């Protein structure tokens, strides 16, 4: 009896796996069908886009911008959500190569480990455009251009504002930092830019720095511990709005007033963050605009036509103080 069951169980598992695989292959067939239609010579440009995920309001606005701009520019878009995983992105890019799309665009989850798959794209003659995040590949010929924000600059602007606004402070200014996902370009660059800017004033000291993974829950949990470990925190620098918003709750729970007892500087300027800034809970936001869809489609057309494009294209961005946030909020798109 026992033996019979033992022999049955694996067979059932295999059947289940087979069913899964079958479902997968049917879906894949559907994809490649539309791919070959769209990939046909002249007419419509086909773009394969691999998004990092939908981890924040920023990312969602970014995805929407890309989709809308593609529809407007008459470019057929194949959109893939990598759910924060590099292996998913590599898989998606390989799929696009097989489907022979005209242009591949993607926002890399992490900076390193892209050489092989980018080489495959290059060998297949498909131009690659990086959006929003860079890769640290030594071979710059692997991609045509990088369209996105300058994260170092965002960090630097945040730091410069702090230097400017703590000129009159006496004694040390204790800063805690909530980093983004460890190893990601925005986390590395924002940290670097901020550190470079605050080096101008020896009063400014980063006393603790931890990863909050760009999420509210992460920002909150880390800030709770910062508040307990360090009785005197003057400034919070969060690498994105969401971590700052999570930290707000921790600060309030600790009986302190965000924006007054602790100066809060964040980056991104998504709607909830701008609201907090307008409400006086944040003090400064360096914008990182997600609306790069139109610029991306413009570049895709040029690249497809074989025109030369600059190796680095910056998205247009600004910074916000509390007053500017109040003025900008009503017309904010995201």
């Amino acid at each position, binding site marked *: 009896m026992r033996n019979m069951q033992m022999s049955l169980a694996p067979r059932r598992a295999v059947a289940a796996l087979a069913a899964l695989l079958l479902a997968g292959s049917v879906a894949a067939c559907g994809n490649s069908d539309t791919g070959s239609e769209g990939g046909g010579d002249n007419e419509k440009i086909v773009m394969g886009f691999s998004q990092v995920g*939908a*981890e924040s309001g920023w990312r969602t606005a970014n995805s929407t911008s890309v989709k809308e701009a593609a529809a407007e520019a008459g470019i057929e878009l194949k959109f893939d959500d990598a*759910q924060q995983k590099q292996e998913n992105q590599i898989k998606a890019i390989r799929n696009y190569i097989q489907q022979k799309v005209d242009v591949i665009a993607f926002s890399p989850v992490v900076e390193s480990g892209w050489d092989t798959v980018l080489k495959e794209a290059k060998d297949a003659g498909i131009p690659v455009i990086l959006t929003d995040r860079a890769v640290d590949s030594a071979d710059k010929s692997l991609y045509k251009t990088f369209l996105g924000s300058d994260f170092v600059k965002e960090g630097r602007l945040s730091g410069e504002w702090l230097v400017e606004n703590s000129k009159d402070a006496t004694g040390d200014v204790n800063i805690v930092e909530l980093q983004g996902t460890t190893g990601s370009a925005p986390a590395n660059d924002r940290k670097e830019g901020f550190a470079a800017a605050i080096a101008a004033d020896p009063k400014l000291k980063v006393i603790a720095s931890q990863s909050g993974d760009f999420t509210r829950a992460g920002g909150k*949990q880390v800030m709770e511990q910062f508040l*307990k*470990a360090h009785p005197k925190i003057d400034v919070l620098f969060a690498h994105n709005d969401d971590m700052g918003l999570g930290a707000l709750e921790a600060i309030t*729970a*600790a009986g302190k007033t965000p924006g007054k007892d602790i100066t809060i500087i964040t980056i991104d300027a998504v709607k909830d963050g701008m609201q907090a800034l307008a409400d006086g809970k944040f003090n400064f936001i360096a914008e990182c605009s997600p609306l790069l869809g139109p610029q991306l489609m413009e570049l895709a057309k040029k690249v497809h036509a074989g025109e030369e494009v600059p190796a680095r294209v910056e998205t247009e961005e600004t910074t916000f103080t509390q007053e500017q946030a109040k003025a900008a909020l009503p017309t904010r798109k995201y």
Partner: protein
Amino acid sequence: MTDAKNRYQAVLSHRLFWPVAVLVVLLAANTVYRPGFLSIEVNNGHLYGTPIDILRLSAPLILVALGMTLVISTGGIDLSVGSICAISGAIACLHISQAADQNNMVTVFTALAMALGVALALGAWNGILVSVIGIQPIIATLILMVAGRGIAQLVTEGQIITINSGPYRAIGLGHFLTLPLAIFIALGAALLVAGLTRRTALGMIIESVGGNREASRLAGIRSARMVFLVYVVSAVCAAIAGFMMTANVSSADGNNAGLWVELDAILAVVIGGTSLAGGRFYLGGTILGALIIQTLTTTVYAMNISPQTALLFKAVVVIAVCLIQAPAFRAKLSRRRRGTPTPSTPSAPRQKEEVSA
């Protein structure tokens, strides 16, 4: 003399000794690093301090791990709990965010009921796949683990849903008798599960199904029904944990809510001494395991261990805990220390003791 030695031996060989020791060492190390680590003060009429944080943040993991313990004791595994957390949180938050008055108790309870209903259905789906159709648990629940994230994203449309609802927030952040409400919810669930399984024959029946499903069936136990039941319980526990996670930050994030919690829960169960082969379960050990995992995470932040080394630090501690928990490893270690082979304690009587405990 021998009596004292025996008692010492009994304490050492108690299955909860090593998890407790690890927890104490972690807390002690933190206290050495920062003497105020264990201090608790009153803030706004609530107790406030790192130990309270640890208890509050481990509440969702305790809930998920409770369900997981029952599943694992039947020889199964439930990988879908993280996704169920995300789905239940998303459904509850979506319903509340669409309401005119987010603070309305009726709205909040409707939202909770809807989300629990969906969780019941998802648990039943898992249960049917495993008990009726007979798919291996790891495959059966893998389906929902992967697809479930997609469902959560469909519900939230890929957005983070921010809500502003006092009653819902209370699930994650409210207080009762100066302590976070989440602690009482987790404690209540633990007592309920413990009462149902250990004060009645239910626990023994679940263990016997895990030990040998076919023999249990021949002995008159409805094995399939038991297996079905534990997956439903696991899904409900995960759903409540999902409420806590989303209430904690007043927002539902389909991507990140409950991400990897299934692995933490399995780890908590294993640290607690429950065998992955099934047939035995220890609820107290599971709760201790969950506390150890949360303390470990908090330690990383409290000691400001750099994010680059944090994962390695966690891995080393977890490996140490698992090794020290393994009787085979301990036996080898003590043999080497003493230089003479010690007769290993006969395992049969000890197991009997554990059953009656």
